[in-house]
């Protein structure tokens, strides 16, 4: 059905190979600051791609990813911490029984994070998808807050506001980008399958989708649960990247960041979400200078913390006015498009005497 399918697959494999070589180089030679940024990129690629599945592809505007990331982060952190470490951390009240003794390797903990989060997402889907549109946004926003408040108060499970400390720094570039590639691969394929088409149908016209036999509810659930799974795994990656987690990390601010990414990337485009995740993460680092005091000739601007967010917000406003479709719109990155762009250049070069 698609032109040059085989060739494009080969090009993708080559691109991934080059990416891995680059990662190998980075792991060996880059500074720890650079590695940190690359890890953040991968993390946000995972989160944005999965958030886009429910918000962009299926068109169900929801605001809960901070909750899913929190559940994933706590699940995997509680599994990789050794029983002794957990006993030391929980100083106010001892940890609940099975959690205190459970211990698992990193990979298993990531898997568990995904499964637990997906299960929570699945249960949550039943009440949540009884409503649509603005109401859905508000209900899911509420859920995000509830999880954070629960995490703050269940002293025997999450250690409350003290958070979990001393999580082993398992996340390196291989883990983060490996999971990112798997996530994007899985989601992109899902979106391009018959199930993805059904999700788009639900987004564009739910009534018509039902008329052609699509169960809108179950397709929303599929998108939501899949999204929850990968956000949970992303949470596990996050916990083992920054090694300390507490409820304050999982405020609405995280969701807001992801929302910027998927809107900038183009709602509904998985590759757009990935590109935007990388641009926004790098942009955020690059813009750090605006939060430092600036001496420009005779003008002296004092340090303004939070200035980056102001700039991001301005960019977002400008995008909503001038480029509402984001970088990719609903289109996906395609090799055919790239090669078609290159072709005129080739012909032009050949024509030269």
């Amino acid at each position: 059905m698609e032109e040059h399918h085989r060739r494009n697959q080969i090009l993708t494999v080559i691109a991934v190979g080059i990416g891995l070589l680059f990662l190998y180089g980075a792991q060996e030679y880059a500074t720890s600051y650079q590695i940190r940024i690359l890890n953040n990129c991968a993390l946000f690629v995972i989160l944005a791609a999965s958030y886009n599945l429910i918000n962009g592809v299926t068109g169900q505007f929801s605001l809960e990813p901070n909750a899913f990331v929190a559940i994933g982060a706590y699940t995997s952190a509680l599994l990789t911490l050794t029983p002794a470490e957990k006993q030391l951390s929980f100083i106010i009240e001892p940890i609940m029984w099975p959690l205190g003794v459970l211990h698992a390797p990193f990979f298993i903990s990531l898997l568990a994070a995904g499964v637990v989060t997906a299960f929570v997402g699945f249960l949550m889907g039943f009440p949540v998808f009884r409503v649509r549109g603005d109401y859905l946004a508000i209900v899911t926003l509420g859920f995000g807050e509830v999880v954070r408040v629960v995490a703050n108060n269940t002293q025997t499970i999450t250690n409350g506001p003290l958070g979990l400390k001393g999580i082993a720094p398992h996340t390196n570039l291989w883990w983060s980008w490996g999971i990112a590639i798997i996530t994007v691969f899985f989601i992109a394929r899902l979106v391009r399958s018959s199930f993805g088409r059904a999700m788009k149908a639900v987004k564009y016209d739910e009534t018509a989708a039902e008329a052609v036999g699509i169960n809108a509810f179950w397709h929303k659930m599929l998108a939501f649960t899949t999204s929850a799974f990968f956000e949970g795994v992303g949470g596990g990656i996050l916990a083992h990247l920054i090694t300390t987690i507490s409820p304050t990390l999982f405020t609405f601010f995280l969701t807001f960041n992801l929302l910027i990414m998927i809107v900038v990337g183009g709602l509904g485009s998985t590759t757009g979400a990935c590109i935007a995740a990388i641009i926004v993460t790098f942009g955020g680092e690059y813009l750090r200078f605006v939060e430092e005091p600036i001496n420009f000739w005779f003008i002296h601007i004092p340090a303004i913390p939070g200035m980056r967010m102001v700039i991001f917000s301005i960019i977002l406003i400008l995008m909503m006015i001038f480029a509402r479709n984001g970088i990719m719109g609903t289109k996906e990155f395609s090799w055919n498009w790239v090669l078609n762009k290159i072709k005129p250049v080739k012909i032009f070069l050949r024509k030269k005497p």
Partner: protein
Amino acid sequence: MDFFTTKNLTMKFGGLVAVNDFNITLEKGEIVGLIGPNGAGKTTVFNMIAGYYPPTEGAIVFQENIIGGKKANEITKLGIARTFQNIRLFTELSVVENVMIAYHCRIHSTFIGAVLRLPLYRREEKMMYEGAMEYLREVGLDDLALEPSGSLPYGKQRRLEIARALATGPQLLLLDEPAAGMNPNETQELLQLILRLRDNHNLTIFLIEHDMKFVMQICERMKVLDYGTTIAEGTPEEIQNNERVIKAYLGEA
């Protein structure tokens, strides 16, 4: 057992009785029309049959399944497909994708199988694509398969909607004003198309239409609604000469 029957179908919106005691029996292979002045409750009947409104009273039986109160997607899977009065395509998606979406309810793959592109899914994807192209060929849109469906002219959008409804594999097809907004030429083409589709797919067709010439030509039998009540039924000739029908359309002299 009848192919399709409704018994005392009634729909009330608050105090308003939109449809009152609607009874109809369809035989396999028939083309039956539903006409009536604006606001007579014709689309409400369709919405009840297709599962958008749960009937306030009455029963709908389709091939021994009681479908009153079932959800729209379940009813579609049982074999009743519909088109809409105001065309509802997935305008951002391509023509062939619109039809392939309708095929989705007929596949057996799981989403994991789809992501991993297991052999069953590959087969089904191929079947969906080829099947969709076949339906498009039937309605004469196969050369436009990759165009965005929103860019099609009106008449072709109507035909695409019919192709999409066919792709769900229905036995009963509900057409809500298929000829609306078409010129006489297009209407004649549509008429031929509907007759051809009925024969090729063993369809039973129940349609709402305002274009009297079209209805009289295509329908073997028809029913007339006014203010939610059935005021007449019979062959086109009988309807044309029915006093009450003329009154309902033209008002009292």
